[in-house]
């Protein structure tokens, strides 16, 4: 029997070599790891179970019959991250440039189907030159099979894409339909059409990095949720994120032992709000003070910085945080911040992750660019996402909650379960100055009178008590007790159940 075992070993060894040592060296020369090396970093040591190692393509045109390499440019299977199951595929650039053939696509589809059936997330490591041109429409069909599965798996299991090399043309649409995209700085790019085509069509001269590098997608387009220095750091951060996510939509968010007193008081929060309401402060300090162990995994950190999104844990369990950031554009809502937060809220709601909303919002950003850009519809996305969410929701207003933005930011009226405010909260239709200028237009010439009116308005409305008197705020809390109060609020909501009326699906304002 030994020769047969040796034969298997030989076939495995051949498959492990992918496109051969020369191409592996070239991949390393670019500062990139190979497909299997990446899985070694991503998964727990020794946990990877590979499938379809011997699959090869069936094409014969353009001399393809002589270019069959075991695995056909993608490594698939499952493994664990800290002991929790995950399905993975990792494209192998050393095999025909990682190009996607019919069989390559079939391998991906197979593990996606298994992931959905078994309720475990999929992580895709993308490093591919695109469609395998030699296969023509068969390759395109392969993409489409993957796309359809991305859509079907959406909201059932978390899907994470990591872009670790080129990802162009139709290939971008699979990551685009997943829940998270991470990129490697300087060695990955994503675009629908490359710099050459762009130059021909629009005469714009642009490099691949400028057009679709990590900088572009984390700061300008918001296509990516984060970018890291190299392959290893990127995969390590994916491991960190994975620990926050439930395995599927029937699962609860994971629970982990924690070493931080849920009743921890933070005296420093009593001085977080500056004397003047026109002075900014860093909302991240509050997030870190509330979080277990000060641990916060931020998403889209460099895009629409006027709103902060990311995950913390409270009593060991994942909570999604949406927070206005007064340090940037006074924390206002605009097109970008509304879209960013809406996407985040939808994911949390789909996967049973409770949502904490921290509010200091002066309103929507005025401007021609905003209106022309459709701020109405984009703002509505966030309003819709919150209104529809059924996960436990706790809201804390630290300072401003003005106008329509008050309604949007997880107010009681649109479905938040527990709404707290600090005594520094100002819940009103608008700031005192603006309000008096409208209410007392006839007195505008008299600065003294207007000042008195402004003071009067401030005293009446620049506080949380008008809202609290109506029950829109459940309790006005001491800033130093925020962690304790919020942790207890979420604890009280663990049994929350909402029955949804049957419908095929909603019609969110896209």
């Amino acid at each position, binding site marked *: 029997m030994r020769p047969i075992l040796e034969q298997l070993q030989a076939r495995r060894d051949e498959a492990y070599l992918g496109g051969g040592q020369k191409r592996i060296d070239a991949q390393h020369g670019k500062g990139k790891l190979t497909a299997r090396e990446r899985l070694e*970093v991503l998964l727990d040591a020794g946990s990877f179970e590979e499938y379809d190692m011997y699959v090869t393509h069936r094409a014969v045109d353009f001399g393809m019959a002589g270019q069959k390499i075991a695995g056909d440019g993608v490594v698939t299977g499952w493994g*664990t991250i*800290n002991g929790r199951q995950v399905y993975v595929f990792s494209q192998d650039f050393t095999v025909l440039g990682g190009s996607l053939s019919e069989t390559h696509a079939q391998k991906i589809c197979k593990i996606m189907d298994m992931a959905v059936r078994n309720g475990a997330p999929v992580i895709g490591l993308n490093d591919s030159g695109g469609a395998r041109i030699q296969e023509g429409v068969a390759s395109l069909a392969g993409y489409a099979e993957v796309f359809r599965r991305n859509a079907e798996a959406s909201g059932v299991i978390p899907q994470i894409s990591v872009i670790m090399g080129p990802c162009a043309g139709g290939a971008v649409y699979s990551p685009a339909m997943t829940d998270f995209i991470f990129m490697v700085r300087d060695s990955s790019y994503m675009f629908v059409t490359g710099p050459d085509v762009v130059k021909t069509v629009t005469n714009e001269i642009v490099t691949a990095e400028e057009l679709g590098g990590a900088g572009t997608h984390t700061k300008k387009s918001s296509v990516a949720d984060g970018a890291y220095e*190299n392959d290893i750091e990127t995969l390590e951060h994916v491991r960190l994120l994975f620990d926050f996510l439930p395995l599927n939509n029937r699962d609860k968010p994971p629970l982990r032992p924690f070493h*931080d007193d849920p009743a921890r008081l933070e005296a*420093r929060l*009593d001085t977080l709000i500056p004397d003047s309401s*026109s002075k900014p402060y860093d909302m991240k300090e509050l997030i870190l003070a509330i979080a277990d162990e000060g641990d916060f995994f931020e998403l889209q950190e460099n895009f629409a910085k006027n709103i902060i999104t990311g995950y913390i844990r409270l009593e060991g369990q994942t909570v999604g945080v949406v927070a206005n950031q007064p340090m940037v554009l006074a924390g206002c809502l605009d097109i970008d911040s509304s879209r960013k937060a809406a996407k985040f809220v939808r994911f949390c709601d789909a996967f049973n992750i409770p949502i904490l909303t921290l509010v200091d919002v002066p309103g929507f950003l005025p401007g021609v660019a905003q209106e022309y850009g459709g701020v109405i519809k984009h703002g509505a996305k966030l309003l819709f996402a919150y209104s529809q969410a059924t996960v436990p929701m706790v809201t804390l207003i630290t300072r401003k909650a003005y106008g329509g933005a008050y309604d949007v930011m997880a107010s009681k009226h649109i479905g938040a379960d527990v709404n707290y405010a600090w005594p520094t909260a100002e819940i009103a239709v608008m700031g005192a100055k603006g309000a008096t200028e409208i209410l007392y237009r006839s007195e505008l010439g008299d600065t003294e009178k207007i000042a008195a009116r402004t003071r009067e308005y401030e005293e009446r409305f620049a506080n949380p008590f008008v809202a609290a008197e109506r029950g829109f705020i459940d309790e006005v809390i001491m800033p130093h007790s925020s962690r304790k109060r919020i942790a207890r609020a979420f604890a009280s909501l663990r049994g929350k159940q909402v029955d949804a009326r049957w419908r095929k699906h909603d019609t969110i304002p896209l």
Partner: protein
Amino acid sequence: MAIKKILIANRGEIACRVIKTARKMGIATVAVYSDADREALHVQMADEAVHIGPAPSNQSYIVIDRILDAIRQTGADAVHPGYGFLSENAAFAAALEKEGVAFIGPPVGAIEAMGDKITSKKIAAEAGVSTVPGHMGLIEDADEAVRIAAKIGYPVMIKASAGGGGKGMRIAWNDTEAREGFQSSKNEAKNSFGDDRIFIEKFVTQPRHIEIQVLGDKHGNTLYLGERECSIQRRNQKVIEEAPSPFLDQATRKAMGDQAVALAKAVGYHSAGTVEFIVDGNRNFYFLEMNTRLQVEHPVTELITDIDLVEQMIRIAADEKLAFGQADVKLNGWAIESRLYAEDPYRNFLPSIGRLTRYRPPAEGAHEDGTIVRNDTGVYEGGEISMYYDPMVAKLCSWGPDRTAAIEAMGRALDDFEVEGIGHNLPFLSAVMQNGRFREGRLTTAFITEEFPDGFHGLAPDTAAARGMAAVATLINDRLQRRATKISGTIGNHRRVVGREWVVALGSEAIAVTFAQEGDASRITFADGGTASIHSDWLPGQTHATFFVDEMPMGVKVDKIGYSLRLRWRGIDVIARVREPRVAELAKLMPVKLPPDTSKMLLCPMPGLITAIAVAEGDTVEAGQALATIEAMKMENILRAERKAVVKRVAVPVGAGLAVDEVIMEFE
């Protein structure tokens, strides 16, 4: 007279310091505060507090009438001025006298006499105090200059009367140099200042700053409480002080003390005062000036004499007699003071303002090993370091039976001091405690410029320190990894097993280790076979803990940044990455990236209105310096320099409305 209520005409740590002693003596206290200090610690600590005006001190803390109003309002019968502000203001002392309120400080005459540099030198010389030898009169020619120089004794400094900024200044070590120096100084002085008058004085080599604490009552008793050495200075700002001085012998101490007392008596001094001397490499000492107030660095004297100087000042002001004589003053052990400044050592000590998001001083009082830690401060966690006052955050003092013990205690106390939210000099202070020359006590006032000629960029760990840090990182990693495997939802029987082999990357150095749990402690084995035991109570989330590495306590600050750890200890600040050996091997394939090229332009980060431009074309700006202010959504946002640069062009005027990414200024 008995003092019942003291108003402290000051703020910050010294106000808190005075309140502590007053409370101990059963005396009521009144704080005064400006707009910027409404929530300050001294206001919270005092029995009463009076608002005295806007934030700038020239509209509040140093306005005599405001203080007098506060006194009348509260019925305070005495005033302690602290240091700075009105503490050496004769008019203030006189005004209090007129008001019938006790001034807890020296008599008006003494303040006046010592307040003038020339008068004070004259009085000192008359009182038999050693002053820097020199010739004040006009010098005719080079021959006379040589004669005078020889009489003073080389080396000498030849200076232009009108001089400044090093111009017209020469040091001569012999007759030839004196002759040449005189000529060139004269020429330079004539050209630069149009005034060629020259004088010559002794040039003090290897200068140290050593000062004598004096204390006198109103009944003619004056004594000295030993010395303090304050040679560790940066741009004439004292950074580290100690008592006693590692340089003085008993004879010199007594000679300096006697002269200081003689000077105090000559001006009818009472209360606490300090006579500053400059001391050369041969222990020759020369009078510099007398400070007629409580010094910032007084705690080191208190620690070695066990005398509460503020209490003595209050008793003296209440006409009490000193309860002890010179023979009762015993210097016991060694004390060191480190001044914690809100100055960023990595950014050329640029002042830093902002919120103290974390402020956890080390435990005060007597420690098990017999050392003492004391921390004088006026801040608290969540408080604000404002731009209006001096940037001192705290004075951390340590006491030990000898100098080495005091230095070690200071090193540990600095490790245990957590300050976040602002840039501060803690790592620099730690580095000085590690400095070989400091530990040997070979100090001069040029210590910092000589030992840190290129500024301070953090200490690089030596082999032993690197192993200690690697052991700490490995222990932390083991706890984090083990906890990570305890997540819910794992597939049973196939849980992740945390390995024992790790590679710790500290900066660019990779250290391979094997980790083994042995009872309560753990053992780290290094690749070369060396081992270290380690134990600690550290748990995930703690930002500071003591790690016992081979039973040596290391107080390490720990910050988890993504998958890596930032560790800070003894002036070392490193990023540690702990990885499985296979991952560490793959990590070697990762490209080494140069820091990103920060653009040479300041771009507008948000649509807004430029409300201020803080620099002009041609200015050199330091990293962190304010460049411009943008008002957006009714909020003021200050834009700061990312690094040192010269402003080439300011592209927009104040009042301009800008869109995102518009150029505000360009750098060279």
